[in-house]
C-alpha cells in the first residue's frame, strides 16, 4: 500500500462514534489510519505499527507520559507521543501522523505528505 497523499479532507465518521481513549481504524484513500479522541483532542496516526509491522495501532491503549498524550502499541508496548508520532522508548522510530478535525459533528482526516 503506497502512501498516496492527497490534500483533501475525507469525512470518516460521526464524532460520537469515537469513544474517548479508545481508537478505531479507518480507510482513507487506501491508507489505514488510526483515530483517537483523548483529552478532548482528535488525533490521527498510521495504523501500521512501525516496529511490529502489523496494522494494529488503533487497538493500542491511550494514556499519558509526563503530561504528553500517548499511544502504546498492542503488540510490544512501545509508547508513542500522539502529537508528534515520536516513539518514547526507541530512538529513531516514529509513527506517521495525519491531520484530523471535526466539522459539524463529522470527523475528517487528511493524509499527510511524507515528511
Amino acid at each position, binding site marked *: 500500500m503506497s502512501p498516496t497523499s492527497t490534500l483533501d479532507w475525507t469525512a470518516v465518521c460521526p464524532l460520537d462514534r469515537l469513544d*474517548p*481513549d479508545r481508537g478505531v*481504524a479507518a480507510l482513507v484513500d487506501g491508507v489505514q489510519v488510526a483515530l483517537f479522541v483523548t483529552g478532548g483532542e482528535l488525533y490521527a496516526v498510521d495504523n*501500521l505499527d512501525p*516496529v511490529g509491522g502489523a496494522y494494529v495501532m488503533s487497538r493500542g491503549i491511550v494514556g499519558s507520559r509526563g503530561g504528553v498524550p*500517548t499511544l502504546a502499541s498492542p*503488540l510490544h508496548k*512501545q509508547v508513542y507521543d500522539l502529537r508528534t508520532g515520536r516513539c518514547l*522508548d526507541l530512538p529513531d522510530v516514529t509513527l506517521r501522523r495525519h491531520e484530523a478535525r471535526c466539522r459539524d459533528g463529522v470527523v475528517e482526516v487528511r493524509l499527510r505528505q511524507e515528511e
Partner: protein
Amino acid sequence: MSGGDLVVIGNGMVGQRFVEALRARDHGRRWRVTVLAEEGRPAYDRVRLSAFFDGVSAEELNLHTPDDGVALRLGEPATGIDRARRVVTTATGEHPYDALVLATGSYAFVPPVDGTDLPGVFVYRTLDDLAGIRAHGAGRRTGAVIGGGLLGLEAANALRLLGLATSVVEFAPRLMPVQVDEAGGAMLRRYVEELGVTTHLGVATTALRPGPDGAVAGLELSDGSTVDADLVVVAAGIRPRDELARAAGLAVGPRGGVLVDATCRTEDERIWAVGECAAVDGTCHGLVAPGYATAEVVADRLLDGAATFPGADTATKLKLLGVDVASFGDAHGATPGCLDVTFTDPATRSYAKLVLSDDARTLLGGVLVGDASAYPTLRASVGGPLPAPPLALLAPSGESGGGVAALPGAAQVCSCNAVTRDDIDAAIAGGCADVPALKACTRAGTSCGSCVPMLKQLLDAAGVQQSTALCEHFDASRQELFEIVQVRGIRTFSQLIAEHGRGRGCDICKPVVASILASLGTGHVLDGEQASLQDTNDHFLANLQRDGSYSVVPRIPGGEITPEKLIVIGEVARDFRLYTKITGGQRIDLFGARVEQLPQIWRRLVDAGFESGHAYGKALRTVKSCVGETWCRYGVQDSVGLAVALELRYRGLRAPHKIKSAVSGCARECAEARSKDFGIIATETGWNLYLGGNGGFRPRHADLFATDLSTDELVTLIDRFLMFYIRTADRLQRTAGWIEALEGGLDHLRAVIVDDSLGLCADLDAAMARHVASYSDEWRDVLDDPDRLRRFTSFVNAPHVPDPSITFAVERGQPVPARGAPPAAGADRRRQPVALGLPEVRR
C-alpha cells in the same frame, strides 16, 4: 549459512545459551535444532553449583526453558562424528547435520596418583557429583580437597558445610596461584585457616590409601606426611573435552581443546565449537563469560552475521562464605611498564592491589582479598580511566560506592552477560525501576550475581526511588489500589485517577485497574468506560497474533468434549479458513480471524453450546486433567470430574496474571499438575493440593500445601488461595513469585487461608461466592448487545471491507500469516541481537 539441520553436542551452560541466542534471532526458523546431552537433566547453572549445599534445589539451578523448536535428547551422548557423511552417532541412532556445534565443556583432571579410583573419591563438576559427595559425606568426619585453586576452595567450603574437618592440598606455594599474588595468597591463607580449613601448600599428593572398609581414608603427601580423609574431592584443574573432535580428525589447540578461529569455526566449515571445549585461536577459557561470548558469535554466524570473539574477561570472584577474594584483568602485572598500587590493612585484614598503565591513568587489573566490595566497580573499569583516585577506590566498603557515578558508559557492569553501563542506563530510562526489572530486561545479574550491588547503585545514581508505585500515574501498588477501590467503592477509572492518581493513565495502570474492577464484579469488561482500559486481547475477547489477526479459543472444561462439538469446531475452522492447533492446555485454538469475523465465529460456537475459554485475559485459563479412575487402570479418583467442576467454578476469574491448573488421578501425574499455579493429585483417601508452580520464564514446581483433602475442603482452600492472591499480588506477578515474596512464604499462606490468622477467610469465601454467582459468558453478552457488537469492524468508515493487510500463505496444509515486507529499516530494534563486547585482555 542458509539453514537446515543443526546438531548441538552438549547441553551445559554455554550450549544452552547458544541455543537460546540462536532461537531468539532465527525468525525465519531456518534451523531445526537437535541437542544431544550426556547428563540426564537439562542445562543448569554450574557456576552456582555449590549453592546445592546451601539447600538450593536442582530445579532452582535450572537454566533450561522448554522450546518446541528444539529437540533435546537427554542422556543421549554423542559417540562419534562422521564428517564425510555429516552425521553424529549416538548409542541409539544417527543425527544428520548441516551444521554441528560442539559444546562439550570440560572434564575434571585427575592426576595419575594411586587410589583415585577408591570409593569416596569425587570430582566437582556436575550435580550428580555433588549429590554423590553429600551422600558419601553423611556421617563421616574428615574430608580433603586436592587443589587449592578457585574450584578447590569452593569445594573445601562445601565439605566444611557438610560438617567435615577439611584439608586442602596445593602443589603451588600459595592458594589460588593463578589469580592471586604472593601477598594476597598469604592473606587468603589466614582467612581460610580461620574457617577451620587446614592448608598444605607446596606439596604434592603421592597416593590415596583405603581404610578397612575399602573406601578412601587418607592422603600421602610428597613431604612424607599424611592427611586423614574419609572423602576426597579432586579439583586439580580441568581439561577440555575434545575427544570427539580428535577422533573425527579435527585439529586441537596446543594444550587441548577443539581448535577454532575467532569466528569459533573449526577447520571443517560445517563444525563450530563453543564454551570450555573450544580453543579459540589456541586458548581455552574456563569461565562462563567468554563461553557466552562464543555462543553469541556462533549464533550470529549461523544467521549470516559477522561477529568475532571479542577477547575474554578473566575476572573471578571466590564464592567462599565469609572470605572475599577477587581478581580481574591483568592481576599479575604482566603489561610492560605497568605500575602497582598495593594496600594492606592489618586492622581490617584486607589486601588490595591495583595494576595501572605506565601513566597511572588506566586500570589494567587487580586483586582484592578480605574486602572485595569494590570489585564490581573496579572490574567494570578495567581498560578505562580510573573512576576515582586509587586509595579512594580501595577504601573500605560504604565509602567506595561513589565510584559508579564516574564509570564510563562502555564499562561492563555485568561481565557474565556482557551488559554495559549504557545498557543499564537505557533500561532505567525505559522504565526499569528495580533490580528484578533490570534483570529481566538486560539479563545483568542473572548469572553469578556479583554485579547486583552495582545495579542497585546505578538505580540510585539515576535517582530512581525503588518504589512500589504502579506507574507514573499512581503512587500506590496494585495491592493498595485494590484496597482503595474496594473500600471506597470506586467503580470507574476516571474517578480513581482523579481522586488517587494523576494524568490519563497508561498501558500499565489501565489494564491493572480493569482487572481489579473485574475481580470486584463490576459488570462486563466492555461496559462503558471500562472498554477503554482493556488490553487489546480483553477488548476483542480474543488473542492478538503477530499479523494483527486474532485467535479464538472456546472453553473445553477439563478437555472433555463430545464428537458433536468437535465436529462444530472443525466446521467453523473450515468455513472461516482458520489455522487449527491443539494446545498444551487441552484446548483447540483457531487462528487467523479478523476483527469483523469474531462475532460470526462466536455465534456459531455459542449456538453449539460453547462459551469463551478466556484464553485472552489475565484470568483462569485451563484446568487440565488426565483420564482418571473412569478409564485409567491406575486412577484412584475422578480427575476429569473434578477438573470440569473447578474450571466451571473459576471461569472468568480475573487475576494479576493468567492462572493454570491441572488434576491428576493418581501419583503418576499424567496431567503434570505440579507445574501449575494450583495442582491437584488424587490419593487413595482424597486430594493433595500443590500451590505456586509454573513460574513462566524460570519453570518451577508447585509445593505441597495440604494432603488428603475432601473435595469440599479442597475447593474452600483453592477459593481462598485465589482470592487472597488476586487481592494482594503485584501487577503481572505469578503465584510462584507471589508466594516467594510473602514474608513467611508457604507457612504464612497456610496461616492465612487455613488458620484464618488475619480473620480474612469469611471475606475471601464471600468474594468467591459472588464471582461464581455472577458469571456470564462474555461472548454471548457481546452477541446480545448491538452497541458492543459495533466495535467489531475492521474499519469505522468501511465496516464490510476486510483488513487487506491480513493475508495467508499455506504451510503443512493450513493457512499461516504471509510474511510481508519487513517494517521500515531501523525500526526492528526489539529483536536485534544483543551486543557483543567483552573487555580485551592485555597481555
